[in-house]
């Protein structure tokens, strides 16, 4: 325990949140959690709820593991992390089923698959197991937001060009392309945008733009 009290939002702590959003994004830079980013991005509302679910599991998982970090026997640390994550995911799944039934129906198996989301296990192992609770919470928030950011951006383009509409929780379905009259001039929804391959293309474009904007990310040795 350090005697010097650190400010809640010190520079170091702020970095914990801002880094995963860009410089160390779990999806585009660490290339973790790609599977669910491909699958649950057909509609905005699914992507948003999925992001919130992952955020919750990540923050709680990080917090619990960080609190127990001096108690967890190193021989079974992976199993302990797995049990904690699995329990949290089941709780999320049960709560969704009880209170947002429609969303839980459309997310179907993907909520359960949060357990296998590499970001979560990765952060527990890499950060929470060796750091204090508050930092772990911030780390979880940062990585959850970084994951959610990609999901929402990808879902925005997929839904807009695939279905011509946007679904945002709490609002009626926004039929954007119909309102601007794109269909009247002969536009048709792009079916490919609804399928998983288009997410890969979109994530790749995102990485391209991201690296163009932050040159420090480009690996000089790659050429």
């Amino acid at each position, binding site marked *: 325990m350090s005697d010097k009290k650190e400010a809640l939002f010190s520079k170091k702590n702020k970095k914990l949140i801002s880094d995963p959003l860009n410089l160390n994004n779990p999806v585009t830079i660490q290339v973790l959690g790609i599977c669910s980013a491909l699958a649950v991005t057909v509609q905005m509302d699914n992507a948003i709820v999925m992001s919130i679910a992952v955020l919750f599991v990540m923050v709680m998982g990080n917090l619990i593991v960080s609190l127990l970090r001096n108690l967890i*026997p190193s*021989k079974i640390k992976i199993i*302990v992390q797995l*049990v*904690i994550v699995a*329990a949290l995911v089941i709780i999320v799944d*049960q709560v969704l*089923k009880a209170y947002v039934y429609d969303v839980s129906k459309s997310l*179907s198996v993907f909520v359960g698959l949060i357990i296998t989301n590499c970001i979560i296990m990765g952060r527990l192992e890499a950060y929470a197991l060796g750091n204090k609770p508050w930092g772990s919470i911030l780390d979880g928030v940062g990585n959850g937001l970084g994951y959610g950011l990609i999901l929402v951006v990808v879902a925005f383009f997929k839904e807009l060009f695939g279905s011509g509409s946007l679904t945002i929780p709490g609002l009626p379905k926004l039929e954007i392309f119909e309102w601007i009259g794109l269909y009247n001039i002969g536009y048709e929804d792009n079916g490919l945008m*609804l399928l998983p391959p288009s997410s890969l293309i979109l994530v790749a474009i995102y990485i391209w733009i991201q690296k163009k904007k932050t040159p420090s990310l480009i690996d000089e040795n790659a050429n």
Partner: protein
Amino acid sequence: MSINKEGNAYTMIFAITMVVVVGGLLAFISSTLKPTQMENVKNEKMQNILQAIGIEETSTISRDEAGAIFNDYITKRIILDYDGNVISELSNEDPIMAAARKRADEKDAFNVDVRKYYNDLTGLMKKYPEGGAEYEAALKEEAITYPLFVCEKDGKEFYITYFSGKGLWDDIWGYISLQEDGRTINGSVFDHKGETPGLGSKITEAPFNDDFLGKVITTDEGEYRPIKVLKPGIKRKEYQVQGLSGATFTHVGVEEMMDRSLAVYNKYLKGRMASNTAPVINEMSDSNMVTDSSYQMVIDTNAVLAIK
């Protein structure tokens, strides 16, 4: 404290404590949320049935409202067997029962889980690909039944059928409501577990469902004729509906489940139509007939009074 955290004993104790704590917590959460979850499933089914009727009052009903008004609209819940005979009939005065333990004991059509039944049915169809008497005996044995809901509204009756089948990836199921003539489709609701988003999944949306309205399941002579799902853009007859582009296998599934189930419902409805309109034509004696029809009259007036 001097606990050896690398020792086996500590590891075991930690593991056991963790499992007990997590297990207890999950069991607690599961049992607290269960009633809400069951209510959701039940209300969704009621919502689907009400929406399928195809009348204005219930077409946009929300899931929460559906539970409250279900019994106002659905006056009878009937279970049919493979030949279209009535196994059990409940009215809206009977509360919705808890599901029976054994399928053969099920009395409430609301609890007939056609998706489960379909899985057993496919097993039987594989075992007896030729059909025939053995197959039908097996159907009886397995108690594969068909739920039918009757809605009475402004003196008109609607018959809501419920069936399930296989789409491209997973289960699909649907509700079709037939008008008082027992052959004209008045509304439909389809749903699916995992059809391709944007392609097969569109069977839940209005354009696909709207084309079912007014289509008929029998010829003018009263012979059963299955509904066909065509590719989009083809001119359609009164038993053909417009499909979705890029969803051929989902169509095949929709056609198959409708054909298989509506054939059974038609057997029952044909009998019901005959007894509703024409005087009873069978080997009953005249005196029997009189008592029979007067008995029916009494029930009808009672029903009318009850509704009022």
